[in-house]
């Protein structure tokens, strides 16, 4: 036998979907008490691998070993019984139940007819304080908690099932800066308590801060496993995509011209207070700040999807107030929503339908009749220009990987020929390779003279892409930076009000 004993070993896992190979000979070895990062572009097979582990998918070949023993996982319950817990991006919580009920949801009254509420709350409290969260009341409704706290509840829930291996899929995508720090503390604590953690994330900084080993996947294949200390960021990126980090933010040659949009003293609800800014044609204006700083709300109000209580919006020299998104788009003002699943895409509909939604009336139809041939050609050209990978234009949008989904969501805004466009978190949940391609698309727009506003919570992206940056905090503008003043330090200070 081997010298090092692994608490979880996945050996040569292969999985096909129809004729498509999703995983080929992928192996992951997780040591006891380690945080093992799993990284790869979207579509590299991370999620498929974890679904095989959780019993949601059946593997075609390969074996899974737990503590050196071969196990056969055929459904999620068996995985759970073996101590494998997976925390997905979407939490499996009941928002209307209390924290205690959620933590013990599957063991509320085992063997007894009645629930011992006092004991339940007591036990939940112990679990929470074990993670250092005495401030979450077991009686609070989960739906009332912040996303970060909901995540803590989700982790607690899985721990009560004696999880030996905890898998976290992009856990920080929805968290703010300080919440991430706290999550890391929890994970380190769990690791020291003997839980092995598989950590999936696109954020390289996090992997370096947290993990002991990194396993890289690419196109459903195994690239390699490295000790975190033995590699640096650019080498890791090279492993992932086969190209250098410096090319991540493509260069741009845009001429900054006339003012496109000026907003003066805008107020819209409690989230937008006295916001003023302007953007010029060919310029990329970044909006930085913590989640919930009011950036999205500001743009939504201008876009006609929120009520403006006071203030002026001057668009191409004229004062405007868009009543609804239709009017905004008709005037060449577009907005890519932040959450593609909830607001950006029709996941269950065809790629082509998603691509042409904004231009259905202007480019694709005549007297309300769709020209299918023209639509296909149009969508094909548009998507090819964005190097989107898809099988068939009539495939459903949710058959694509996250990066390609995001490109479809973007495509309909490119189609709309906007003169000013807001990108709200354009690269959230998107892998490194697709990110670069999306940056290129945004750059192209700027070069064509479009005024671009980019809301992003990722500092490197703001720094790498923007000509100018506005920082918001609690509904107010707290800073504006240009050129060499754009750096992480100053922006974080403005964002946190230091």
């Amino acid at each position: 036998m081997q010298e090092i004993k692994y608490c979880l070993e996945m050996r040569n896992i292969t999985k096909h979907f129809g004729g498509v190979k999703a995983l080929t000979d992928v192996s992951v070895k997780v040591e006891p008490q380690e945080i093992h990062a799993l990284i790869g572009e979207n579509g590299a097979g991370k999620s498929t691998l974890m679904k095989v582990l959780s019993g949601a998918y059946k593997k075609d070949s390969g074996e899974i070993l737990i503590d050196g023993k071969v196990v056969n996982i055929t459904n999620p319950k068996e995985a759970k019984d073996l101590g494998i817990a997976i925390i997905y991006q979407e939490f499996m919580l009941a928002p209307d139940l209390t924290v205690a009920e959620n933590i013990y949801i599957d063991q509320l009254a085992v063997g007894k007819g009645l629930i011992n509420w006092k004991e339940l709350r007591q036990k939940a409290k112990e679990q929470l304080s074990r993670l250092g969260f005495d401030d979450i009341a077991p009686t609070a409704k989960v739906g009332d908690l912040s996303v970060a706290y909901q995540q803590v509840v989700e982790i607690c829930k899985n721990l009560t099932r004696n999880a030996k291996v905890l898998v976290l899929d992009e856990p920080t995508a929805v968290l703010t800066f300080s919440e991430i720090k706290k999550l890391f503390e929890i994970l380190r604590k769990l690791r020291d308590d003997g839980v092995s953690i598989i950590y999936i994330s696109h954020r390289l900084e996090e992997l370096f801060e947290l993990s002991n080993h990194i396993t890289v996947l690419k196109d459903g294949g195994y690239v390699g496993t490295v000790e975190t200390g033995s590699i640096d960021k650019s080498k890791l990126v090279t492993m992932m995509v086969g190209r250098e980090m410096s090319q991540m933010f493509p260069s741009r040659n845009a001429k900054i011209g006339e003012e496109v949009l000026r907003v003066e003293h805008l107020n819209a609800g409690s989230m937008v207070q006295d916001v003023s800014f302007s953007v010029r044609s060919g310029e990329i204006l970044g909006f930085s700040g913590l989640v919930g700083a009011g950036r999205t709300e500001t743009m939504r109000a201008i876009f006609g999807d929120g009520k403006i209580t006071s203030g002026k919006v001057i668009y191409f020299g004229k004062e405007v107030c868009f009543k609804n998104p239709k009017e905004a788009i008709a005037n060449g003002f577009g907005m890519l929503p932040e959450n593609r699943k909830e607001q950006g895409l029709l996941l269950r509909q065809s790629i082509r339908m998603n691509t042409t939604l904004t231009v259905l009336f202007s480019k694709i139809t005549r007297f309300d009749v769709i020209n299918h041939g023209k639509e296909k050609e149009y969508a094909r050209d548009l998507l090819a220009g964005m190097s989107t990978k898809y099988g068939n234009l009539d495939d459903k949008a949710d058959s694509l990987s996250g990066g390609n989904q995001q490109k479809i969501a973007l495509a309909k805004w490119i189609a709309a020929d906007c003169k000013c466009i807001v990108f709200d978190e354009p690269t959230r949940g998107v892998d490194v390779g697709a990110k670069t391609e999306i940056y290129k698309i945004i750059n192209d727009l700027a070069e064509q003279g479009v005024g671009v506003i980019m809301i992003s919570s990722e500092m490197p992206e703001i720094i790498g892409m923007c000509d100018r940056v506005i920082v918001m905090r609690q509904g107010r503008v707290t800073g504006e930076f240009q050129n060499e003043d754009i750096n992480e330090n100053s922006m974080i200070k403005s964002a946190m009000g230091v």
Partner: protein
Amino acid sequence: MKNKVNIKNQLIQNNTYIIFLGLFLMCSLLSGNFLTAMNIRNIALQQAGPICVVLGMLFVILTGGIDLSVGSVMALGSATASYLIVSKDMHFTSAILITLVIGLCAGVITGTLVAYANFQGFVASLAMMTVARGAALMITKGSPIKMDTNTLATLVKKDFGYPILLIVAGLIIAFCLIQKFTAYGRIVIALGSNIKAVELAGIRVKIYLVSVYAISGMLAALGGVFIAARASTGSGTIGTGQELDAIAACVIGGASLAGGKGEVFKGVIGALVLALISNIMNLMAVPAYPQDIIKGIIIVIAVLLQIVTDKAEMTV
């Protein structure tokens, strides 16, 4: 290899047709009276009204809504048309037009509650269901209104080529084309997938929402007129439970009550599946109450098949 997968996919996706054909074959074998011109014609005439209702219902379901008022609006249509013909001495064509407008108004009210007052479709149409039923019974004063056979019944006469069959066939074709070839059909199905995304793409979603309920109301009233034409009698009590049959037809046709999925022609076939079931049982003299039980079981089987389909689609 690829061809094989495609054929399998085709079979799975078109299981509504397979169910229908299987059932049709079974009926032909079970009763010698089934495959006769008279019986087929009867089924067609009988289903003209319900199919109109299914067309409207399908569009509502595509948006993720539901219209429970259709059965009552059918009764309202039947009552209004016969009342106008008998008591107001109106020509049946103008009576039908007025009836259609009334059905349209009922739908607009339901749709406005859904789109602008944020009612759930279930609740808004439930209210309309009660109101329309009450109105229908008030118009007929609770008893059937008998019409002359040379008025509304013209619609079902052989001499004129069974006009209602032509109308229904025209409507089915029109709706198939609307769904496949118009921006309207496209947006209806998009609404049921993700209404927020559609709104943010610059489409006035509320108007579309109102319109599907309006169409559903109008077609339900037309369905009521057809039923009155067949019996040459207007009644405020017809159409009870018709909303559920229409929903069942859509579901058998593969529509998802969550919205965003469903096809016009398959919905029509779904209605015919239900029609065949009652027809064959009538021919075989199965009593009414057991009929309902068998019908329920068949709906379950059909929907189970659909669920299997969905799963197959997901893992293929």
